Structures are given as structure tokens and as C-alpha cells.
């Protein structure tokens, strides 16, 4: 049996010292395989965001191991993790986090610049990504000229333009109304199904979580439940 794509092994993450020490994650074991769509839920302070930061290689565990694609990602230095994020991980945030006053296509190209991809190829791939999220007609618009749903789709295009193996989504629909939420979640589900993109998504909305295939619930830094669910939509 091949090693799982993502694996937490007795993983701890603590903040502070001595009396003030707080365990955000307290001995978590979790595996996610390639092609999974996992929704991570839990009340605030449950450790779900910390878990997401570690999955996304933004943060490192205090103890235990985090293995990503067979690499001991929890022990990699800052620069190596940056490379890892640039090549294998796409990020989608609640607040979109696009660069202001920068056109949609320039935003989407950004990760490719850091990868050293040439100008012409960058443009081509960014256009492809924008087409995939249905924004071919908005390439030169700046975030201020786009609706929230459109901004989030630009952010998704930016996340997938590097053809990552993992998409990390932190409350991707937190700022959107029901119709926009539906659009975005459909898009993510499609990327998961059609492109085999592994998705780890934090949400606190139960119906959003239903778009995933598996729901992991965190409580007090530990996994409280881990259930495979039926797809709400085909």
C-alpha cells in the first residue's frame, strides 16, 4: 500500500510557554489520500485553522510528523516550504486575498512569476485558468471591479494555475451569499472530480461541508469525528 498523500502522525502544535502554554493541536492523527475532498469543521479555537496551516505548509508542528507527498514537510525550512507551496499547493481564502489594483490576469500569473515561468507561457496558463473558472471576459478587471463571487473565482484560478496537487481552502464561501456559495462550491467539486484535485477545506457551514466527500470535525485540538458522506449533488 502506497504512503498516504497527507499524514499527521501524533501531531502537536502548541503556543506560549509554561503556564500560558496552549495546545492548538493535541496528538492528531489524520491521513488524506490523493483525490479526496475533505471538509474540516469545528468551533473556533478547535484547532482546525492550525491544522489547515500545517496542511498548507504555512506552519510547522511542535511535535509529531507531518508528511506531505512522502516528504517530512513539518521539518522543512521556510524556503523549502515556500517552494513546496509554489509547486504543489493552491490557496483559497475567505477574504479572496487578491492584490488590489492589479488585474485579474496579473493576480493569476503571480505564482508563476515566483516559479520563474516566462512571460508568454504565464499569460497563456493564466488565461486557461481564468477560462476554467468562467472568467474569460474579465481578465483585465481589477478586484475592485469584480463581485465577491468573481473575486473568489479569480483566487481559485490563481490557486490552480500552478496545477497543484492540493488545494487548501479556508472558509472559501464565508463572504458570499447563497447563490455565489453554490457557484463556488460547484466549481470546487468539479475541480475535484474532473481534475482529481485533492481539496482540504475549512468551513463552519454544514451545507457547504456537504460538498465534500468526507467531514473531519475538530474539537479542542483533537479529531472528534471523521465521516465519509454522500454527495449532495451529482
Amino acid at each position: 500500500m502506497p504512503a498516504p498523500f497527507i499524514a499527521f502522525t501524533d501531531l502537536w502544535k502548541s503556543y506560549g510557554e509554561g503556564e500560558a502554554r496552549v495546545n492548538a493541536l493535541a496528538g492528531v492523527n489524520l491521513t488524506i489520500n490523493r483525490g479526496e475532498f475533505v471538509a474540516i469543521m469545528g468551533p473556533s479555537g478547535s484547532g482546525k485553522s492550525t491544522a489547515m496551516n500545517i496542511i498548507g505548509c504555512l506552519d510547522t508542528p511542535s511535535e509529531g510528523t507531518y508528511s506531505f507527498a512522502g516528504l517530512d514537510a513539518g521539518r522543512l525550512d521556510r524556503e523549502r516550504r515556500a517552494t513546496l507551496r509554489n509547486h504543489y499547493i493552491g490557496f483559497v481564502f475567505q477574504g479572496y486575498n487578491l492584490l488590489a489594483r492589479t488585474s485579474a490576469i496579473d493576480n493569476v500569473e503571480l505564482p508563476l512569476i515566483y516559479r520563474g515561468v516566462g512571460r508568454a507561457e504565464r499569460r497563456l496558463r493564466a488565461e486557461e485558468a481564468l477560462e476554467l473558472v468562467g472568467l474569460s471576459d474579465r481578465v483585465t478587471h481589477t478586484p475592485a471591479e469584480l463581485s465577491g463571487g468573481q473575486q473568489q473565482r479569480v483566487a481559485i484560478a490563481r490557486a490552480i494555475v500552478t496545477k497543484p496537487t492540493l488545494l487548501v481552502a479556508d472558509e472559501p464561501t464565508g463572504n458570499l451569499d447563497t447563490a455565489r456559495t453554490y457557484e463556488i462550491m460547484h466549481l470546487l467539486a468539479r475541480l475535484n472530480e474532473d481534475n482529481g484535485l485533492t481539496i482540504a477545506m475549512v468551513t463552519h457551514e454544514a451545507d457547504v461541508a456537504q460538498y465534500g466527500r468526507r467531514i473531519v470535525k475538530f474539537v479542542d485540538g483533537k479529531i472528534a469525528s471523521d465521516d465519509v458522506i454522500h454527495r449532495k449533488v451529482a
Partner: protein
Amino acid sequence: MFFETVRLALSSIRRNALRSFLTLLGIVIGVGAVIAMITIGNGTTQKVRADISKLGSNLLTVRSGQPALPGSTGAKARDFVQKDVSALKANQTNVKAVSATSQKSQRIVYGTESLTATVTGTDPDFLIVRDWLITEGRIFTDQETRGGIAVCVIGETVRKQFFGTGDPLGTIIRVGRVNCPVVGLLEPKGTSGFGQDQDNVVLMPLEAFQRRVSGNNDVQTIYVSAEDASSPSEVQSRIELVMRDIRKIGTDEEDDFNVRDQAQMVTAMTSTMSTMTGMMSAIAGVSLLVGGIGIMNIMLVSVTERTREIGIRLAIGAHERHILTQFIVEATVLSLIGGLIGIALGLSLAALASYLFAIPFQPSLSVILMAAGFSAMIGLVFGFFPALRGARLDPIEALRHE
């Protein structure tokens, strides 16, 4: 990649145009001052050289005292008196002319007009040693010179001010408290290398000047014009011997006067000039330092303001060096722009000065390139710390930043 970074820097500078401009002022003023100073200095030096070489290599200037050296006491030596001049005149071979002069800045009045001019008390030989011509009228007669009779020869500037197109000869002007008939008009000479109007002068007999204008018997400068075929250095040593003798300077004592030929005058003036330029440049350097600190300050603000942007960039895989480069390039471009504006400003000032004071406009490419390079370096140095701060941000913290 580098092109992208420069484009990014430019757009960020443009976004905060006013703030960027204010930040740049220090650099602009510093670089502008240095460029103006050096360009004007070069022009002046060239003009002084040209002026002095026009006088010919055979003119020797005798002044009292020794040129002030750094660390010297600068004690004032005795001025010359008529006795010294007579001794020089009597004991020379290979000399065309000897002229004794004293000068004072004095208010000159004619009718309701007045101006301040340099009044020089001298003798007819002054025209020979200074290679100056009378265009109208005459120079003082020997009788007037000896008798200390107040008559005036005026320069072009004085004539223009008082008489316009009229004839000055025979009219009486007032030099200080002395009524003085104008007997001659000097040929126009224009501006000197130091921006001094050489035509704003009034010549009168030395005796009359001493008695009625300066009120003492001092002679400030003695000009000696050597024969064309003679060797100036021989004449110079002869002058030194005569002066030591007449001024009763003991063998173990130093000269309390100095004799210089024109080449030495050029050297002295050029060195004065470069000392001045150096001092001014040091002051301008302080302005550059302040400008650099301004850049550091604004870059820190910029990094703080854009914490979230840095967070985004780091999250999607930017390395430390990418962020570092981005902000250093921004600071460098910013200060380079300041440098370029400063260069333009400095050159304009120098061009204006050269127009106003009739000195050659002498921009130096090497100085301009150095100023540009130096301003870029300021950005590099002072941009480094803020950039490093940005590059070392924790992406998670940075993304949370509002």
C-alpha cells in the same frame, strides 16, 4: 523577473506619488546641490584659468603676509608702504612696469544715482600690468599721481549706471567724501571667474586714495610685470631679495610677503575653489544621509502597509529573496528617481549661474554618473533593512493583518 520587479516598483511609487515625491526631496536637494556645486566650480575654475592666462605669465603679484595654511596662526603681516614700492621700482632689471595698488569698496554718487564700486588707488602703470586700455579720455598724469590729486578713471558699469549714453568725461562724481572729476573710461572686461563684475571699478591716484578714501598709507598689492623675454622666476627671486632687504627681515626670519606668478595664482585659486566645493559637498552629503533615512522610513511604512500583500505573496510561494528584491528595488528606483531629478535640478541651477555670471557651463559626465550611482546606492543601503523586515514576515501573521 527583474523587469517585473522594476515595473512593480514603479507602479507602487506612482500609486503614492505625493508621498514618494516628498520622500525624495532630501535626495533631490542633496544630489542637486552637489551637481550644481561641482558644475559651477568646474566652470569657475576654467574661467579663472582663462582670465589669469590672459594676463600673461609675466605678471607677478606681491602681497603682504603668507597664504593662510591650515593650522597657521594667520597673523596679519605689515602692509606695504610707498617705501617698499619705490625700492622695487629702483632695483629691478628685466621689468616692464611696477604698479602699487590699494582697494576699497566705496559708495559712488552722481546726481541722484549711486552705486557701490571697487575703488582702486594706483598709478598709470596699472594699465600696463593689468593689460587694460583706456577707451576714452586718459589715465592720470604723473603729476596727478605724485600730487595725490583726486581724478577718476571709471569702468564700464559705472559709466552705464551714471551716464547711460552720455559723455562722462569732465563730470564730477563723488567717491565717498571726495569730489572727483572723471578723466577717462576703461575698456569693458566683463565678469571675472569668481562672478565679480570687473567693470564696476573706479581708479584714482594712489596718493589721493590713501589720503582721502582709505585714510592710511598702506599699499595692499604690488604688481610687477616682467619683460617678455625674461624669466619670471628670476624676477621673482630678485623681488624677494629686495623686499627682504627693505622690510629688514632677518636671515632666520620668514618672508612676511609673498610673490606669485600667474601659474601659482591659478593653483592657489583652484585649490581654494576645490576646498569650497568639498565643504559644500560635505554639507550636501548630510542632506543625502537625511534623504536616505527618509527613504528607510517610507519603506518601513510601505512594508507595514503592505503586510497583507506580502502575506499573499509568501503564501503562494514567494521566497524571502523575492520579497527582499521587490522592496530593495522599490527603494533603489525611488532614490534613483530622486537622484535623476536632483541631477536635472543641479544642472539647471548651474546653467542659470553660468548664464548670470558669464562662466562656462561645464557639466561633467563622470560626476553625473557618480551622483546617479550614489543615489541608487542610498536606496539599496537604506532600503535593505525595511525589505528584510518584509521578507522575514510570517505568512500566517501577515495574512491576518488588516
